[in-house]
């Protein structure tokens, strides 16, 4: 190897380091790498932040064990024990090193007393390493170069000055996909000989029989990885990556602002969630919106759901089909790291739909006025035939009841259609008060009700006193129908609807055993910014929708067992749904990938939902009310199936609308809609205040 320089050679970027490293490695038999900030980088600016979720975890475990320890106290105790251990090591060694299993065992013994043991230490260690793994990213260029070196037959060794022993570092390297290419891992926690004093180099040289003249060391610390190897005759190559320093400075700013201003908490979480290095490959516009917009909103919503369930001690959580499909997947990704101690409700996917429940909902109470009115909310429904379609009734069988009130099956009952007369609507209301008609409805719905009860019993729906229902929301129609279908049972649970948005277009009759709450938007709470979600309701429905057909009905087979009947997918609507699934596949993948990284990031920034609100509001207003045209065009769905929407064509407005919601139109009207977004948002405010 050439003569050593007087001071370490510095590279200012990863690519520069790899280029220079390849040149120098030609004369080397062994290449040693520093681990943190060289081979792996942390998403956070400060490695100590990873300790905070662990302190909260230990605090929660202590609470469960009846030994209340606030997480700050746990953190102080850990810092004190680590400091004491470093001081103690310093008495016998040149380096003041600490070893995680030793000081953490002392911390746990002090908190848990006799209950502390190896199993508890293992649990805490697993959680700490899981958080570390979530926060660590392998540097793409250096990782590839390392693999190249190993393939070329060079000896590749990893050296690190850290409190984690080599066995733990191997788990981190394994997760990063680097371990198979590394010959050996050395940590100062095992030997208390660190690179900082240079003694680690002498120790490794002796153990591995290395010749310093044919040894290249790569690291980022000017002393430990620069001057110390030089003193031992080893050629150092230092990485001082200015872009990496900038990334960390940006992460630090977001973190510190999030402490002072709640607005930045959500943004700081997103900064820590962001893909880095090889993860950050080019993605489609829909994937990016899924990752940077819908993913965080949905993950924050489900974090709020988890908090509500814990506050109300709800032990069972049902994700309602079909939007619940996405919610359940996100839930399963975020909760293990957000709540490692458990204490969360058991979850289940519940097959429901408005169409399938509407019929069953009439079997006990008959057809109530509020449920009948829901039929005429979509402008496509015009007459009693649509009522029959929604509630799965035979129109011809109901014709005599209609005739008693002067109505026919095709009499227009919706004000949105030509031929509407208010007297007909009054006659329809009289029909709803007609006991004979209601008896006929009950009789016709008995079969669907029986099948539904069997299905609900099979999923243990009646086993709990309180159940939470997670759905995208709006009117709470599914819960309304579900409650009506089980209202006659004494063992019915209290239904807590925890919806993404509650628009309450038709008032929801809240009772002790049946309530809904919109966690992102609730009309009852007048959150104007959050009401921007109403600009593009279909976006949330389609983004969360499961890629299989909707449920049409519950049926009983010959043996009396329940059977779920799904919609056929071979017609034009079914084909349209499949095309929509393909169209949103990228978007859904973005949401799921974001959920993977949300929990660890949230655990580091806050671990509580305090401060989510302003960032969710900002995302909704900025991305929906003030969306750019290209974002709307990328995000807008191709097909949307509304199982309640009939085939009628509503009459045209007398005065054409000048300004349109840009999410609902295309072409010139969309351009005008985007240009007048501010004016339209103020109009939206007036609508909100007036209703």
């Amino acid at each position, binding site marked *: 190897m050439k003569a050593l320089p007087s*001071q370490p050679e*510095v590279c*200012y970027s990863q690519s520069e380091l790899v280029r220079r490293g390849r040149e120098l490695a030609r004369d080397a038999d062994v290449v040693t790498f520093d681990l943190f900030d060289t081979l792996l980088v942390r998403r956070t600016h400060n490695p100590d932040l990873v300790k905070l979720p662990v302190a909260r975890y230990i605090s929660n475990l202590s609470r469960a064990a009846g030994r209340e320890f606030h997480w700050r106290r746990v953190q102080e105790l850990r810092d004190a024990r680590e400091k004491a251990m470093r001081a103690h090591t310093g008495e016998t060694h040149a380096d003041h090193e600490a070893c995680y299993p030793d000081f953490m065992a002392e911390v746990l013994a002090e908190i848990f007393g006799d209950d502390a043991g190896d199993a508890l230490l293992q649990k805490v260690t697993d959680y700490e390493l899981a958080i570390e793994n979530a926060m660590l990213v392998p540097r793409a260029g250096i990782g590839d170069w390392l693999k190249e070196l190993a393939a070329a037959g060079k000896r590749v060794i990893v050296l690190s000055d850290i409190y984690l022993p080599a066995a733990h570092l191997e788990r981190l390297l394994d997760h990063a996909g680097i371990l198979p290419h590394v010959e050996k891992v050395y940590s100062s926690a095992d030997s208390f000989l660190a690179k900082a004093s240079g003694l680690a180099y002498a120790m490794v040289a002796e153990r591995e029989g290395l010749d310093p003249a044919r040894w290249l060391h790569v690291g980022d610390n*000017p002393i430990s990885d620069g001057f110390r190897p030089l003193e031992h005759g080893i050629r150092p190559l*230092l990485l*001082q*990556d*200015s*872009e990496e*320093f*900038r990334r960390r*400075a*940006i992460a630090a*700013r*977001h973190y510190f*602002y999030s402490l*002072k*201003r*709640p*607005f*930045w908490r959500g*943004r700081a979480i*997103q*900064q820590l969630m*962001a*893909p*880095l290095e090889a993860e*950050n*490959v*080019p*993605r*489609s*516009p829909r*994937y*990016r*919106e899924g*990752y*940077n*917009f819908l993913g965080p909103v949905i993950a924050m919503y489900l974090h709020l759901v988890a908090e509500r369930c814990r506050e109300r001690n709800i032990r069972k959580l049902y994700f309602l089909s079909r939007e619940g499909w996405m919610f359940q997947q996100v839930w399963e990704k975020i909760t293990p790291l957000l709540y490692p101690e458990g204490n969360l409700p058991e979850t289940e996917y519940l097959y429901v739909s408005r169409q399938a429940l509407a019929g069953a909902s009439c079997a006990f109470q008959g057809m109530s006025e509020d449920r009948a009115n829901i039929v005429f909310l979509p402008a496509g429904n015009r007459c009693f035939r649509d009522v029959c379609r929604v509630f799965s009734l035979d129109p011809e069988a109901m014709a005599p009841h209609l005739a008693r009130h002067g109505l026919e099956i095709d009499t227009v009952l919706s004000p949105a259609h030509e031929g509407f007369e208010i007297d007909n609507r009054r006659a329809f209301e009289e029909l709803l008060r007609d006991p004979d008609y209601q008896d006929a409805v009950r009789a016709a719905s008995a079969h669907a009700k029986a099948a539904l009860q069997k299905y609900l019993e099979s999923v243990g729906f009646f086993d709990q006193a309180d159940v939470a229902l997670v759905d995208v929301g709006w009117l709470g129609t599914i819960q309304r129908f579900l409650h009506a279908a089980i209202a006659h049972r004494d063992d019915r649970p209290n239904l807590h609807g925890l919806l993404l948005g509650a628009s309450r277009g038709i008032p929801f009759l809240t009772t002790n055993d049946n309530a809904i709450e919109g966690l992102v938007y609730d009309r009852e709470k007048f*959150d*104007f*910014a959050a*009401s*921007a979600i109403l600009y593009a309701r279909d976006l949330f429905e389609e983004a969360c929708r499961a890629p299989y057909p909707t449920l049409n009905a519950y049926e009983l087979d010959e043996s009396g067992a329940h059977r779920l009947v799904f919609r056929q997918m071979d017609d034009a609507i079914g084909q349209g749904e499949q095309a929509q699934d393909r169209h949103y596949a990228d978007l859904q993948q973005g949401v799921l990938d974001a959920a993977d990284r949300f929990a660890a990031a949230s655990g580091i920034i806050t671990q509580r939902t305090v*401060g989510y*609100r*302003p960032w969710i*509001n*900002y*995302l909704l*207003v*900025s*991305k929906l009310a*003030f969306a750019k045209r290209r*974002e709307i065009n*990328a995000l807008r769905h191709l097909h949307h199936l509304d199982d309640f929407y009939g085939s009628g064509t509503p009459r045209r407005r007398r005065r054409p609308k000048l300004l349109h919601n840009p999410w609902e139109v295309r072409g010139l009207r969309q351009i005008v809609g985007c240009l007048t977004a*501010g004016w339209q*948002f*103020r109009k939206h*405010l007036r609508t909100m205040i007036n209703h």
Partner: protein
Amino acid sequence: MANGDDRPVLTRHFDLAGNGVGRTLRHWVRIKTSIMGNYDTGPGLRCLLTLVVLHRFGRPLFRLRTWLNNQYAFKARVRRLLRRPGG
């Protein structure tokens, strides 16, 4: 398959694609000039401007800072100069 619209989720300015600091700054102007709803404390102009500098103009600044940090001989000379009595 990649196409022309494909971009990374995190931009080269370490900002969120499609939701960068410029968009937040524009929204701050809206918050200050119109009714936009509840944002708690809001982003704050000083925070926003700092982030604009870091995201948009941080590259040369950090390159210079990093380079200066590693000029050991230069730093040692400056340190000696500062330590000299009357220096």
